[in-house]
């Protein structure tokens, strides 16, 4: 998918660029794209390191664990079909907590672990279970308390207040997560009824 997507992007761009006679801009765009990527990355190293360091302290202090326990009552009603006290729930909570704090890279291994546990409870190993679909939506539409990457980028680009987006993102992600859960339940119902 991403292969076709990327190739379509550069292919169409090259064709349109030639047709519109913007070949010089196209050359410039290619060079600048590569250069920008490196400049942005170098700017990010410091701030990313800072946050990942702080978050590691949070993990060792048990703060992430605490967040896990706070999230449990919220999650339980969404995964009624899962047995009490199973590994899947624990791994999902860890993954969502990490996402909440903007720890994208720490979250991925936990997310895969959660999926493995859900797969163990899945009767049809080839098809995604309802719990998996719900977890996926929660994972992608996760509540954000600490949008680390965006704060970092805003700081690098010279924002007067890089953290100004923290509260707005909190509000919009909580609203969006709640609505997404409702929509997912509706899609699940429609899917069961009509097998779309």
């Amino acid at each position: 998918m991403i292969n076709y997507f990327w190739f379509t992007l550069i292919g169409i761009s090259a064709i349109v660029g030639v047709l519109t006679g913007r070949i010089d801009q196209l050359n410039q765009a290619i060079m600048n794209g590569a250069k920008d990527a490196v400049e942005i990355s170098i700017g990010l190293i410091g701030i990313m390191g800072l946050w990942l360091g702080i978050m590691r302290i949070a993990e060792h202090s048990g703060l992430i664990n605490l967040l896990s326990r706070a999230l449990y009552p919220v999650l339980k009603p969404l995964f009624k079909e899962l047995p009490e006290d199973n590994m899947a729930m624990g791994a999902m909570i860890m993954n969502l907590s990490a996402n909440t704090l903007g720890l994208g890279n720490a979250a991925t291994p936990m997310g895969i672990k959660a999926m493995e546990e859900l797969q163990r409870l899945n009767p049809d190993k080839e098809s995604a279970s309802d719990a998996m679909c719900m977890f996926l939506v929660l994972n992608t539409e996760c509540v954000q308390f600490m949008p680390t990457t965006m704060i970092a980028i805003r700081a690098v680009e010279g924002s007067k207040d890089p953290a100004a987006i923290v509260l707005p993102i909190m509000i919009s992600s909580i609203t969006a997560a709640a609505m997404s859960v409702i929509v997912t339940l509706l899609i699940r119902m429609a899917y069961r009824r009509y097998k779309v």
Partner: protein
Amino acid sequence: MNSLSRYIIPLLLVGIPFIGIIKGVKVYEVFVEGAKEGLKTVVNILPYLIAMLVAVNMFRESGAMEIVVETIGRLTSAAGIPVELLPLAILRPLSGSASLGIAMDLIREYGPDSYIGILASMIYGSSEATLYVLSVYFGAIGIKKMRYALLAGLASDVIGILISCLIASLLF
């Protein structure tokens, strides 16, 4: 709103190590160990950034983006979404790296404190690259039939983007 969020970062920066010290965590050593991940993370992101920034730059400068945005833009600007954000909204569910590249570009071009800059951070921050997560997670456990996962994921992305626009228009 702004003055409140200005306190969040210093608070976290002092508060988290403070709790760590109380809990007997070797805060300095643990911090350094975590910070090392930063370098690794950025090095891991770089190849994706190069690929996507080059492609996205080409797409924008060649005039191809204008054609796409003009076509869909009439609909979305009626709904109050600035046309400049359309590429980000379109790419966000498809690719984390491409949308990060576009968000960075928007923030750089319009300034991080402009309405478009803020909305770009909000759209990026409150949604996720569904397609990537779907392929990584389901790929890892060998799921072949995704059932309604993709539909639900994409629907939530649309919800996330629309709500970001709504909240931003209310707050800023």
